[in-house]
């Protein structure tokens, strides 16, 4: 029986030009890795196509332990207050190798 360990999965949907900032923020707060997917969508700021070079969304996901989450969320909240659009949600996941994400 494989043992599973709880972690958090943080997902952020935003415009692709925010990528570099998010990545450097993640690194600052010591996440072990991140994954980025191309997306398009619609929200309060209207429709975002996925035309590269014009406008395009990204979905950024980070698996992170609960204890590292707080400063990241605070940083996201600061960005939201400045006017940036970051659709953010967190879910519970279970992983095989918890040391990978700490």
């Amino acid at each position, binding site marked *: 029986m494989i043992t599973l360990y709880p972690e958090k999965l943080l997902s952020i949907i935003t415009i692709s030009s925010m990528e570099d900032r998010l990545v450097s*923020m993640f690194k*600052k707060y010591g996440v072990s890795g991140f994954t980025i997917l191309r997306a398009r969508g619609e929200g309060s*700021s209207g*429709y975002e196509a996925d035309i*590269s*070079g014009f406008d395009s969304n990204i979905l950024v996901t980070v698996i992170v332990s609960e204890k590292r989450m707080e400063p990241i969320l605070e*940083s996201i909240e600061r960005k939201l207050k400045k006017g940036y659009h970051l659709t953010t949600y967190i879910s519970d996941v279970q992983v095989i190798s918890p040391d990978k994400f700490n």
Partner: protein
Amino acid sequence: MPSLESLLLPAVLFFALGFIARVIKSDLRFPPDLAKVLSIYLLMAIGLHGGYELAKSDMVIALTSIIWALVLGFVLPIIGYLSLVATRKVNPMDAAAISAHYGSVSAGTFLTAIAYLDNIGVTYESYPMIMLAVMESPAIVVGLLLAAKARRSQSLSNVPSAGAVVPSTPVDNTSESGFGSLLRDAFTNGSVVILIGSMIIGAISTPSGMSKLFPFIDDIFMGVLCLFLFEMGMVAARRIGDFKKVGLVLAAFGIVMPLVGGVAGAFIGHSMLGFSVGGATLVAVLAASASYIAVPPAMRLAVPEANPSYYLTLSLGITFPFNVLIGIPLYHSLVKMMAAA
């Protein structure tokens, strides 16, 4: 009538086709990366050509062109900003973000103008090509400065909300506050790198090396431009759908501002730089056009408070179609009149 002649150019017709495809709600979609690939090609082709020609040109005129390009890039956004604030229809942050677009340029409009001139057999100098490269970025800087000014005057209302941030966490000014990094972004922008890089390569390559490249950058150029404008027609039609959000006054700005720029550019091209009718028309087109590639992402990052719908609708949905369909032949007639006077 020049306007009709312009409309029967394949490139312009494909722009219209793309526009109509959206209007009739066709399911036609171009793959998301195609526009980017086409614009990489177009910038590379025009850069190589321009560089090749420039190597044989007069450096004094080249430098004078660069100076006038800078003047346009700095002055046009300020005119735009003051007019917009005067309308009282948008807040200062939006005004700053919008006007930055008008100080920069649209390579798609410039290339359509070249196709237009080629088609009616009008020649032009290669200096406007450097002006295209030079004008991409300065307006971004002006936009940032205007936004910083606007932000300072609004700052009283922002302090309390910023106070909500727990002060013990490290301040993450990774790059938001870094004006320097935004400045660097403006000048290492992808389009600028391709354009200036290709110009240098066109200027220093061996002639035999260049001769192998000409079929690529010449023969298929017009076809690629048609495909690019086809897609841009679809993008413009999608953006013009937000017309109502933008309002009549702002929409009018999207037509008046290029006219102001066009007159200024025509004057500089003809009277200050002494270019031929073709060359001065191109300067007018540069001044009249609004950026939709380099400036929008820069404004999103640097002026997040501004509403992207405003500047995207104005630049892509109104000014771009206006220039392609009406502006180019208009500026050309204007320059011809100046030259005749």
